[in-house]
């Protein structure tokens, strides 16, 4: 069986850590560990999402006003960018599973580029713009229209949620760079667990954005108020 060959190869090269019996146990443990970490992340973002929900429920109009300051074009573009990066990440994991080193490196580099593009749009285009517009709460907030305090609250949640998400993207990019270096050294030959774990993380960050996009940019509709 091909399976057993893989197992033997991994154990032979010292890729199974000494606390594990075999590579299957190691694979399952790593997977479960990553999923538990993602569960933690759900609740970590969850504190912010719960607060957002409550204030949105109470100050719906103010939040809609705030939402209209955001750029649907750039938000939507970034959503597409992240979805593309998820595809390339999934293909990278597939390449690792098949021990195709060249494909793996190519797809990882693609993913990294898309991640950097996302961050560039986020900070360079959006945040920069919103800061100049005087929409950065606590730093430069000059909006004095109706519901000003609660519009500021919305903008705070926008910056907090996208900022926390961007932080996860930056960590993800760091992981990708590490993977690329290791892949170049041929460390993932018949040993794809690290790539798969990193993939889970990357897809999770994508999912967070899938929710942030409608919750922040499309809040309550864009058809005027």
């Amino acid at each position, binding site marked *: *069986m*091909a*399976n*057993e060959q*893989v*197992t033997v190869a*991994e154990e032979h090269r010292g890729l199974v850590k000494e606390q594990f019996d075999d*590579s*299957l146990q190691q*694979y*399952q443990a790593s*997977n*479960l560990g990553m*999923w*538990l970490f*993602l*569960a933690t992340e*759900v*609740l970590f973002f*969850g504190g912010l*999402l*719960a607060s957002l*929900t*409550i204030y949105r*429920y109470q100050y719906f109009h103010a939040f809609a006003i705030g939402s209209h300051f955001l750029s*649907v074009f750039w938000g*939507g573009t970034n*959503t*597409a960018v992240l*979805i*593309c990066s*998820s*595809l390339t*990440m*999934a*293909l990278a994991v*597939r390449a690792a*599973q*098949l*021990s195709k080193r060249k494909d793996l490196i190519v797809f990882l580099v693609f993913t990294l580029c898309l991640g950097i593009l996302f961050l560039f749009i986020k900070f360079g285009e959006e945040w920069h713009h919103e800061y100049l517009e005087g929409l950065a709460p606590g730093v430069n907030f000059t909006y004095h229209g109706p519901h000003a305090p609660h519009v500021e609250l919305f903008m705070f949640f926008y910056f907090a949620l996208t900022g926390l998400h961007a932080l996860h993207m930056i960590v993800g990019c760091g992981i990708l760079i590490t993977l690329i270096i290791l892949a170049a050294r041929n460390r993932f030959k*018949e040993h*794809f667990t690290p790539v*798969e774990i990193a*993939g*889970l993380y990357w*897809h*999770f960050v*994508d*999912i967070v954005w*899938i*929710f942030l*996009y*409608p*919750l922040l940019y*499309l*809040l*309550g*509709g*864009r*058809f005027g108020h």
Partner: protein
Amino acid sequence: MTQEAPSSPSATAGFAHIERKRLYIAIWITLLCLTALTTAVAYVDLGGAWNTVVALLIAVGKASIVVLFFMHVRHVIERMIRVVIVAAIFFLALLIIITVADIATRGMLSSPHWLTPSFFLW
């Protein structure tokens, strides 16, 4: 080694299921279409809270697709992972629902009829 491995050995790498490339591409197109859809729907007034509901439903759909296919939960060996996912969503929902329920009922200061002692005593 593993019983879960599909019949053809070429479809597995050790113990993980390998999806076809075509499936990933199809998922990718679906996700892009749903993104376009959710953006488009935001410009239509569906009335009341329906815009929010539809946007969230689409987001849940997209997230489920990512989890099932890109994150391989469809073929995951470790069944506990599904429990972990459900638990995370459940406890997040708990936090949000109970807190919102508090805020929503905070103004109701007098008890409804069915909660007063006289209701139970007559």
